[in-house]
């Protein structure tokens, strides 16, 4: 891409005491793309975001936002922010909270238009403190987008949302991308990255361990899943050396393997009645688990 990136970390280092939160991380967000930053807790995602938001400065390397220091108010007027843990004054109403944030931007959306877009009319005039966790997240999302940002930071945006609200938020995120907004998303929900992201960067121990499109990341992983209905006993399937894992998924056996062809030959040979066979490439979740655990001495779980 010839255009300069909107947000960019270059060889960023950040230490807290002896712990290296970021250890030479380079990363960028370009116009019109949604980049998902994945990684286990403590991987350095929050630190990376906070360098780009100008809340901290890198010990070494650089953080650039719209070609400027992230602390610059001009740069900040072009971004919208939804943080992971934000406590807002309980006595204020969502309409007032959104209006206050709107007042900081040069060309914000109409407050009422944002409320309508996110279907928040019924809670816009209730005290913020009386809202449920999911409703609060929706209000925070409204606050993040009201400034008509060119780049939106979303840190775990759908935690606590029900399926309906999550779908609604995803719809708006897709619309924003379509309108030319860029988004940097951090999430624990792999399917969220899978559903929304053009590009994924995986971070462990302050370093990038994989990056690319969702498909590219998947391709990193040679695992495939074979699903089928079979009369073979689970123990027998487990005894095959090619099968790494076995589980049951809605009445079908699910075998994880690196050698799908060999497993299929065995399967067809051992059970002539086998049916409903399906071979899947690994999901992003599996890919993620594999990537982070192979780069991690500790457990690379998503929690």
């Amino acid at each position, binding site marked *: 891409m010839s255009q300069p990136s909107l947000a960019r970390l270059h060889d960023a280092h950040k230490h807290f005491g002896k712990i290296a939160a970021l250890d030479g991380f380079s990363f960028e967000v370009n116009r019109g793309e949604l980049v998902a930053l994945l990684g286990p807790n403590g991987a350095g995602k929050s630190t990376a975001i906070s360098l780009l*938001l*100008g*809340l*901290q400065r890198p010990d070494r390397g650089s953080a650039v936002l*719209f*070609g*400027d*220091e992230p*602390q*610059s*108010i*001009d*740069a*900040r*007027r*072009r971004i919208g*922010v939804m*943080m992971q*843990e*934000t*406590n*807002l*004054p309980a*006595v*204020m109403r969502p309409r*007032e909270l959104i*209006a*206050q*944030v709107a*007042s*900081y*931007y*040069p*060309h914000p959306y109409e407050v009422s238009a944002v409320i309508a877009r996110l279907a928040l009319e019924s809670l816009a005039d209730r005290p913020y403190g009386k809202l449920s966790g999911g409703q609060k997240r929706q209000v925070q999302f409204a606050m993040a987008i009201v*400034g008509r940002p*060119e780049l939106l*930071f979303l840190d775990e945006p759908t935690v606590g949302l029900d399926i309906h609200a999550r779908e609604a938020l995803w719809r708006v995120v897709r619309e924003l991308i379509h309108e030319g907004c860029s988004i940097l998303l951090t999430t624990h929900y792999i399917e969220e990255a899978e559903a929304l992201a053009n590009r994924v960067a995986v971070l462990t121990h302050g370093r990038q361990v994989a990056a690319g499109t969702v498909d590219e990341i998947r391709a990193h992983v040679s695992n495939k899943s074979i699903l089928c209905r079979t009369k073979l006993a689970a123990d027998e399937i487990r005894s095959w050396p090619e099968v790494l894992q076995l589980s049951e998924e809605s009445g079908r056996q699910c075998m994880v393997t690196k050698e799908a062809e060999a497993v299929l030959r065995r399967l067809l040979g051992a059970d002539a009645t086998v049916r409903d066979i399906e071979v899947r490439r690994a999901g992003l979740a599996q890919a993620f688990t594999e990537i982070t655990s192979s780069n991690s001495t500790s457990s690379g779980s998503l929690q």
Partner: protein
Amino acid sequence: MNAGHSTMNRSRVVAAYLGDIRFELVKMIRTPAFAVPTLLFPLMFYVLFGVFMGSARGNGAFALYALAGYGVFGTMAPGLFGFGVSLAFERELGTLTYRQALPMPAGSYLLARMANAMVFVCISTLILLIVAATAGHVPITFGQAVHLLLVNVLGVLPFCAIGLFIGSLVSGQAAPAVVNLIYLPMAFLSGVWFPIEGMSKVLHQLAPLWPAHHLVQLGLGAVGGPTVGSTANHMAALAGVTVLFYFLAMRRLSNRGFQLLGPARGGGTAAPLRRALTVGLMSIAIGLIIAGVMGGNAPRAVANTAATSNDATEGNSATAATDAAAPSGAPVGVAAPEVPLVADFDQGSERSRYGLGWQAGGDDMRGGSSKASQHLVDVGARQSRAALEVTGEVGTAIQYPFAGTSFLPNGTENTEFGNQGYMDYSAKSTLSFQARGDGQTYTVMLMGPRLDVIPSMYGFVATADWQEVRVPLKDLSGLDLQRVRLISIGTSTPGPFRFQIDDVRVE
């Protein structure tokens, strides 16, 4: 880069600042834990102490003192709580981090809270002024009211700075306790509730260490009350406290990654200059505080006009200066006679049995327009032969008007008031006398060596029938029983008055 997209026109920036102020104000009004102590407590205490125990009992001087005192009480709260508690919580809960990521105009966070504190102070002081002028019968001019309002509205700044420092230091959970631990003792030690001159010599001498003391003195000066220290001293101390705590708080916050004034850009060449400037300002602040504290308690005579309140030493009468040099080092008065009777007026004379008295008088010596005269009338209390009647009119030319009749227990003719001797009444416990009159409230006033403190006072109502008034001398605040210079019975309520006394005793 597309600069046009991120530049904001001036009117939108101004609107953002104003919006933040309005936002904070609405937030605080909806927060009872803030609004109640700020607006209701000073009013409640003033009605309780200033009106019921002050004005209603004839202690107009205390009603005036309390106006300044509780005004400061109401000024400390919005600064200390608004910054201390809210900031600590917002820092801890991540709100401050979030706000920093927003393109909030520079300094708006501080400005909105400061403006908010000022609005609250303005309201609480206005309420006190209205109550004082109506229910409290405190004679106060429009100019004095405006002066007090100004003193308090600006006086909130040092408490904002102290609050900011607390908020930068402690956790949200601890903040309310820490703020109260500073707020309430400081209020007491600074004489916010009661003048501390009479309570303890040590506490009195330490008072200039507390910022609230200086604000109380400025408030008293504003409404024409008796003050110590010079205006310049008090302003220096308060300005120093504001600058010092502001910088300490900012440094603390910036170490924790918070730049409340907006980001410090560039660093590099500007840094040494900024550091030098900070060090310079801090030194000046500390210098101001020291100067203010050192001179913050210098006694001075009761200020009759605001014009004389500018210097501690100039313009004081020689006597006041002498007293000030050794306020309680003054010799103990002569021992009071065994006989309790001071005067029964039955011998056909207005004279007291000892000392100098009784003498009718107004406040003309202090430039006032109050007048009084006295004469004997036939048939006193309990069918005695005679009583002393005092009539006159209290004018409003000066603060603290007073007219009535006075008795100097150890007084002598042809001696200046400031050189009159003292009587040691420490063996006695009660001043009693018979009184009747026109149904108004009157005041018994006792003065010691110092002329620069509020006299000890006791109020009573002179009803149509004779009644015995008993003044518990040991319980009067601020009274040095070993050194009683003057006992006056009279009134500060503007207008005509008439009362009679008989059978005055100290026993």
